[in-house]
């Protein structure tokens, strides 16, 4: 059998950074090949070159023995390469079939297309109603739309970029069943992830990138997750540890909070109740789009409500963000650029964004720039933010460094309650570890910490207690110690009515 795709000495440089340096590897037909690496290791650039979005500076590729140099994604698709992106490009107000038709060169009649969609989705255990509006679908179902869009092209090579970051454990199982079926049919899969257990469970081969170079190739089934992680990071990983101290009294409590969605396809919060005690880290798990943003904005004060939120028993629901900061409730939203920080403003100005009240950076409305500057510099120094200076624009920082800055900004203000949403999303392993450690240290000093995250490993690592957010409803909170992945999965709503899919997949496998 000839090699399906071979990549030979690809190099791609951007100003100031070599994204891919002399990268070579090969994929066999029917192989699930993992591409491993930290953020910024060059995974995205590499697959963009294979998919024709970016042209290499030098090097060559062959596909099924023929020279392969796609000048645009259309050419790559024509050669049998398909890609499912991490961020979906779907129109919420259109139906599944319409969305799929939009991505096709020559879409067939809508009725014929709907039949094809139904066929493919049944065959691969991914049931999907072609007539449903995408806006009403869960993240897992949206991903199925993208996958089916690719499968309709009958690709030889399917590229998947971080496909499980939006899925519950049960949904991941269904996806894996589909991928395994594709592999049996001879389709090769290039699987990008930094979730090591998944890769060990699914992949036949792995290429590990670090700083744009291939540092290792291995069979992931023969390595431990820890060994893989160390190859990826290039050093021995530092483990975070909580102090495990006694918890204090309840600080923040939420009773029966309901909030209508802010946008048409937002999530309604329904009867959310919980309380957090001093020194406690409450982990709130859930797949994105299940009310995380809404919950954060109700706690930060961006959205007000009737009397449902209490600090030390006092109702605070009607206070805005500034007043809440004054009494010690600080927060870190998910979106770094544009929400937690203003992209074009300097780090000094961004330090002022949430720090003006508690750090006394303004007297009678007049700003104290020297004091603001030293606050920004203190954040940079304490949290090891890599930046040329405090005057750099927020958008010039890498994701991990900016995240360290925005989390550090809140931590240094000695909050009584800190609420963070996806604190380590898209952040490299070393920065993520530093952020988690900072949250644990804060809890050790008596702050009540609420961590909203999709990353269950992260929550298990740092939480004292765990609750699941699903469809705008919050489960009762349970101690985190001793929870298994299956239990968490069920708390997260299981497979979101995808059990049907499971049985279909089984039938298909046994057929």
């Amino acid at each position, binding site marked *: 059998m000839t090699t399906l795709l071979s990549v030979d000495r690809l190099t791609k440089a951007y100003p100031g950074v070599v994204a891919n340096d002399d990268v070579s590897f090969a994929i066999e037909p029917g192989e699930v090949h993992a591409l491993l690496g930290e953020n910024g290791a060059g995974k995205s650039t590499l697959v963009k070159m294979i998919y024709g979005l970016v042209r290499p500076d030098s090097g060559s590729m062959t596909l099924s023995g023929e020279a392969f140099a796609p000048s645009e994604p259309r050419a790559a698709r024509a050669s049998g390469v398909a890609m499912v992106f991490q961020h979906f490009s779907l129109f919420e107000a259109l139906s599944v079939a319409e969305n799929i038709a939009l991505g096709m060169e020559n879409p067939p009649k809508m009725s014929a297309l709907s039949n094809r969609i139904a066929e493919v989705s049944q065959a691969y255990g991914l049931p999907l109603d072609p007539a449903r509006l995408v806006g009403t679908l869960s993240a897992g179902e949206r991903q199925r739309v993208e996958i089916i869009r690719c499968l309709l092209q009958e690709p030889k090579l399917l590229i998947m970029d971080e496909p499980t970051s939006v899925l519950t454990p049960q949904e991941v199982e269904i996806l894996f069943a589909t991928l395994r079926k594709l592999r049996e049919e001879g389709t090769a899969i290039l699987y990008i992830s930094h979730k090591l257990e998944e890769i060990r469970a699914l992949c036949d081969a792995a290429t590990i990138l670090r700083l744009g170079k291939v540092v290792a190739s291995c069979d992931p089934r023969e390595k431990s997750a820890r060994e893989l992680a160390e190859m990826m990071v290039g050093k021995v990983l530092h483990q975070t540890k909580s102090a495990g101290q006694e918890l204090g009294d309840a600080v923040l409590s939420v009773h029966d909070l309901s909030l209508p969605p802010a946008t048409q396809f937002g999530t309604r919060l329904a009867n959310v109740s919980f309380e957090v005690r001093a020194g406690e880290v409450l982990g709130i798990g859930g797949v994105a789009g299940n009310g995380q943003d809404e919950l954060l904005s109700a706690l930060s004060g*961006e959205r007000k409500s009737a009397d449902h939120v209490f600090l030390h028993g006092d109702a605070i629901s009607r206070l805005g963000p*500034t007043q809440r900061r004054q009494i010690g409730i600080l927060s870190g939203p998910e979106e770094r650029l*544009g929400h937690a920080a*203003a992209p*074009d403003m300097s780090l000094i100005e961004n330090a002022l*964004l949430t720090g003006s009240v508690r750090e006394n950076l303004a007297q009678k*409305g007049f700003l104290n720039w020297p004091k603001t500057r030293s606050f920004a510099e203190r954040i940079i120094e304490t949290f090891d933010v890599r930046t040329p200076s405090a005057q750099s624009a927020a*958008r010039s920082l890498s994701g991990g460094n900016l995240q360290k800055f925005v989390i550090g900004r809140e931590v240094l203000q000695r909050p009584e309650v800190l609420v963070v949403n996806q604190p380590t999303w898209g952040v490299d392993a070393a920065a993520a570890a530093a952020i988690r450690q900072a949250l644990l240290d804060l809890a050790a000093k008596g702050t009540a910490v609420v961590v909203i995250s999709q990353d269950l490993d992260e929550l298990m690592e740092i939480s004292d207690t765990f609750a699941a957010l699903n469809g705008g409803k919050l489960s009762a909170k349970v101690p985190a110690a001793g929870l298994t992945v299956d239990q968490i999965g069920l708390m997260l709503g299981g497979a979101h009515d995808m059990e049907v899919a499971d049985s279909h997949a089984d039938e298909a496998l046994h057929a």
Partner: protein
Amino acid sequence: MIRLEKRPNPSRLWTALTPVLAVLLTMIAGGILFAILGKDPIEAIRTIFWDPLFNEQFAAFSRPQLLVKAGPLILIAIGLSLGFRAGIWNIGAEGQYILGAVCGAAVGLAFYPSESPLIFPLMVIAGALGGWAWAMIPALLKIKFGTNEILVSLMLVYVAEKLLASMALGALRNPEGGGFPGSRNLSQHPGTANTELFPGTGMHWGVVAAFIAVIAAYVLLNRHILGYQIKLAGQAPRAARFAGVNPNLLVAVCLGLSGALAGLAGLFEVSGPAGQISIDFNSGYGFTAIIVAFLGRLHPIGILLAGLLMALTYIGGELSQFMLGIPAAAIQAFQGMLLFFLLGLDVLSNYRIRFSGFAAKGAS
């Protein structure tokens, strides 16, 4: 192939250099335009930019005109720039300018023929309030009903023009004017005149107010939390809400402030250079100020310089019509070019130009 590449940080050098470059390019392109019209381009450019200030024959008349014309432009543009920075688009400064003039003039005329020194300060307050009130209409509609302030403020300009005409013909008409439209002359009556402070300079109270506004806006934007919130709301609205900025309050403050400043400009004009309320009192300062605000990059000092430059092209433009017979439309096209080149060159401060044979395609 030419490729644009986003700079990690905006270039300070280019931010400062692009206005100069834009003026130079306007001179070149404008010169070509004038040459096509059969005029000597060098002479035309000299007539526009040089003669108003330094020609022995005209400078004595046109030099004071520079401040007279720049004053209202700067005053209005400063107000507009605050809103523009916050993403609040007051396009109706012309209407607020008219209302300021009408209200201020009405107060002055109400006390006629008194010559008390208290009248002029009262007129100033009435002018500011008139402009403020007119701007609060789009502000309140936006806050209460979410209407688009661009449309409402623009439409109100036409309402204001009708109101102006009715005032000139009715309530404020000069009873001793023999039936002609237009009010009494305010600038020739001691109690209501906005006098030239230093003879031969064109400096009147409106110019003083413009300079004060420049300094106040500079302090506001660089040293005050409100200025910070204005910038934040314009650059990252979601981050502004996160920081605790109340968007409705910002709408009211920005529209109200720009309306008040436009109203002041109208009052100083009607009591000084224009002299009286007439049907065609307004001459487009409120619209030109939008160009001035952007030409000055929404920065107070930039607006000061842009206002002076714009005033110069106005005076020089009139001079070139008079001296060289260049059509008024060509002068307007020339002024338009200035804005065009400035906005076009803006790209240089945020992007770097790369020339390369094999340019990679960006992500779609």
